[in-house]
C-alpha cells in the first residue's frame, strides 16, 4: 500500500521554494509523436508494417527489418524483471525526487523496456503499463500495480506524472453555471483542499448560489474574465496559493458566418473565451510556474474546457467554434511555454452541453456530471486531451483520422 499523502503544512517563510525543474527534454521526432498518444492516455508502441514486430524505444525504422513503423494501441500487460532504486542523479529534476525507482519490464506486446515504477510494484509482479507525460511533456512508460492498491494515487513518483486534486487549491473560473458547480463538487470529493469559485457578477443571483457557497471547502471569489482588472486583482490575491486553474467560462450563442451571426455576440464570445483565456494565463501562469515543485500541493495544471467544434467548425454555431479554435491554438502555445516550467496544460473537449443555448440541437448532449468526471480524470491521469461525452469522442476520432473530411461533415 501507499502511505497517504500528509496534509501539507504551511510553508516556512525563511525557506526558499524548490524551483520547478523538468526532466530532460531533448527527444527525437518519433518520441515527440509518442507524446501525442500519451497526451490522450493511450498506451501505444510502434509496430512494423512489414514484419509486425513491436519495438521500443521510439525509432524511425524497424530495427529488425528496416520496415516503416506505425503507432498501434497495445496490450498494457507486463511483468517486472528487475528493480533498481536510483539514489543519485546529475539531473536537477530527479535530484529533487530521490530516491527514484525504475525497473526492467517485459511487455506482453514484445519488447523489454526500462520504466518508472509505482511504489506498490515489485520484482516479479504482473503490472499494468501506462504511457504518461512527464512534467516536461515527454512520453514515459510508468508501471502501475495490476490491481487497485490503497492510496494508490498518493504514490510520490506517480504524483509527478499527474495533477491530482488531492490537497490542492483549485480555482474554478465560473461557478455561476451548473457545470462550474458540478466540477467544484467533484474536485472536493477528489480531495481538493479548497475550490475558489469564480463569480463574474457577485451582485447578481444565480441558481444554486446559496447551496454551493455553503459547502465546506468552497471559497467564492469575484472573477470576471472579460475584465483585465478583475483577473489581475484576483491573481494578486491568490497567485501563490492556486495550484490548479480550471477554466469553465464559455459564451455560446447560435449563429452562422454570413447568416444569423450577431457581431456583438461574437465579440462577447471572443472576449470571454479567447481574450479571457489569455487574461487568465497572464494572471496565474507566472506564479504557478514558480511553484511546480513546491511539495505536496505544488502548482500542477491549467485546464481549459472548450467545445470540440474548435477542431472542425460547426454549422449553426460558427462563432462558438471559431472561439474554440482560437483557444486550442492559444492552449498549444501555452502548453509549450508551461512545459519549460513543469505545469501541465490540459484541454477537456466537450460536445454541446445540455444548456439553454443548445436547445435546438439533438441529443446526446453533455450534462454537468459528465464534464466533472472528465475534468477529474484529466487531472488524476495528467492527460492533456480528454473528451467529455460521445459527441466529442466521435468528432475527435474522426478528426484524427481525417481532419478535412471532419470539417466538411460538421459544416453542412
Amino acid at each position, binding site marked *: 500500500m501507499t502511505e497517504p499523502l500528509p496534509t501539507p503544512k504551511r510553508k516556512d517563510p525563511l525557506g526558499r521554494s524548490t524551483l520547478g525543474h523538468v526532466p530532460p527534454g531533448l527527444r527525437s521526432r518519433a518520441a515527440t509523436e509518442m507524446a501525442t498518444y500519451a497526451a490522450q492516455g493511450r498506451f501505444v508502441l510502434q509496430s512494423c508494417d512489414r514484419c509486425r514486430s513491436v519495438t521500443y524505444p521510439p525509432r524511425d525504422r524497424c530495427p529488425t527489418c528496416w520496415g516503416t513503423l506505425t503507432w498501434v494501441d497495445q496490450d498494457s500487460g507486463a511483468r517486472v524483471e528487475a528493480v533498481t532504486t536510483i539514489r543519485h542523479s546529475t539531473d536537477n529534476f530527479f535530484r529533487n525526487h530521490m530516491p527514484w525507482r525504475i525497473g526492467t519490464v517485459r511487455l506482453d506486446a514484445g519488447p523489454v523496456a526500462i520504466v518508472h515504477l509505482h511504489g506498490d510494484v515489485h520484482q516479479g509482479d504482473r503490472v499494468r503499463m501506462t504511457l504518461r507525460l512527464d512534467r516536461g511533456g515527454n512520453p514515459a512508460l510508468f508501471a502501475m500495480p495490476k490491481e487497485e492498491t490503497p492510496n494508490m494515487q498518493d504514490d510520490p513518483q506517480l504524483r509527478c506524472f499527474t495533477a491530482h486534486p488531492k490537497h490542492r487549491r483549485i480555482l474554478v473560473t465560473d461557478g455561476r453555471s451548473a457545470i462550474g458547480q458540478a466540477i467544484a463538487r467533484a474536485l472536493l470529493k477528489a480531495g481538493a483542499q479548497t475550490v475558489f469559485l469564480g463569480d463574474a457578477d457577485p451582485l*447578481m443571483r444565480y441558481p444554486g448560489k446559496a447551496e454551493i457557497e455553503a459547502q465546506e471547502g468552497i471559497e467564492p471569489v469575484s472573477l470576471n474574465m*472579460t*475584465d*483585465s482588472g478583475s483577473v489581475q486583482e484576483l491573481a494578486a490575491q491568490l497567485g501563490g496559493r492556486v495550484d490548479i486553474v480550471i477554466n469553465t467560462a464559455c459564451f455560446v450563442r447560435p449563429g452562422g458566418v454570413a447568416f444569423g451571426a*450577431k457581431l456583438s455576440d461574437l465579440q462577447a464570445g471572443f472576449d470571454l473565451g479567447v481574450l479571457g483565456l489569455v487574461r487568465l494565463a497572464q494572471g496565474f501562469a507566472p506564479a504557478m510556474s514558480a511553484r511546480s515543485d513546491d511539495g505536496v500541493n505544488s502548482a500542477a495544471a491549467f485546464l481549459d474546457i472548450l467545445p470540440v467544434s474548435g477542431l472542425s467548425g460547426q454549422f449553426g454555431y460558427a462563432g462558438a467554434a471559431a472561439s474554440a479554435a482560437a483557444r486550442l491554438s492559444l492552449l498549444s502555445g501555452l502548453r509549450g511555454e508551461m512545459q519549460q516550467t513543469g505545469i501541465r496544460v490540459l484541454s477537456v473537449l466537450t460536445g454541446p452541453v445540455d444548456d439553454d443555448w443548445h436547445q435546438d440541437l439533438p441529443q446526446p448532449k453533455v450534462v454537468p456530471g459528465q464534464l466533472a468526471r472528465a475534468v477529474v480524470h484529466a487531472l488524476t491521469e495528467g492527460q492533456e486531451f480528454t473528451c467529455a461525452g460521445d459527441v466529442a469522442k466521435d468528432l475527435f476520432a474522426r478528426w484524427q483520422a481525417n481532419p478535412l473530411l471532419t470539417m466538411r461533415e460538421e459544416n453542412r
Partner: protein
Amino acid sequence: MTRSPLTLLAEALADRTVECIDLTNTLSPDFPVIVLPAEFGQCAPFRMEKVSRYDDNGPAWYWNNISMNEHTGTHFDAPAHWVTGKDLPSNTVDAVPTQDFVAPVVVIDISKEAAADADFVLTRAFLEDWEAQHGEIPKRHWIALRTDWYKRVGTPEYLNLKEDGTHSPGPDGSAMEFLVHERDCVGLAVETVGTDAGQAFHFNPPLPAHSILHGNGRYGLQCLTNLDKLPTFGAMIVACPLKIEGGSGSPLRVIALVERAPA
C-alpha cells in the same frame, strides 16, 4: 457698466456662489448595466485595457483603450434610441441641438415613495398634487426624479433584478404625456438604470418614458447621482454627450450648477 450674464456667472463660479455638483457615477468595469432578456443583445459594460503605463509599451506615457455600450454608466439617451423617435430630425447624439446640453432642472422628490415601494409609479395625479404644493413645473426644464436610488449602487438592490424582472420606480404614460405635452420638458433625468420603471414593460403603453420622450424629441439621462443635493428649482444641468456619428446615446459627465444658499 452692466456686466453680461456670463461675466456674472464667471464671478459666481470664482467666488463659489455658484457651485458645480457632479451628477455622474464613476465609469468602472463593475458598474451595473441594464439587463435584457437573454435572447436579446446585451449592453456591454465598461472595459479598460492598458496600452502603456510608463513601461516597455510606452516608456513616458500612460493611456488605456476603453470600450462600452452607448448606454453604459451615467448616460444620455437621444431620440433615435427608441423606435418612436427613429424618424425625427436631429435625433442622434451628433445632431442633437447643442443648446439643449445646458438647461434648467426641476427636481421632483419621490425618494420616500420609492423607499416604501420599489415599484412606485409616478402618475399625472401625483404631479398635479406636487404642483399644488410646489408650483407649476416650468417649461423647457429637465425633470429630475430624485429617488435616492444612487445610494444603492454597489448592491444587488440597484438593478433589483428578481425572478419576475427588475423593480425600480418610474413614470406611467399619463405622467409622461403631461410632462412632454403640457410642460414641454427637455427630458427625464433619473438615478435608476433606465428612465422607465423596472416593471414598465408590463405597463400600458409599455415603456412609456422611452416611448413618449423619444417619440417627441426629448432626452433621457440615466444612472445619475446626487440628485438629493439639488434644490427643487433653480439648478442648471450641463450634459454634453459625445459626438458619436449616428449615435443613439452616450456616456457623459453630467454636472449641475447650483446657487449656494446664503450663509
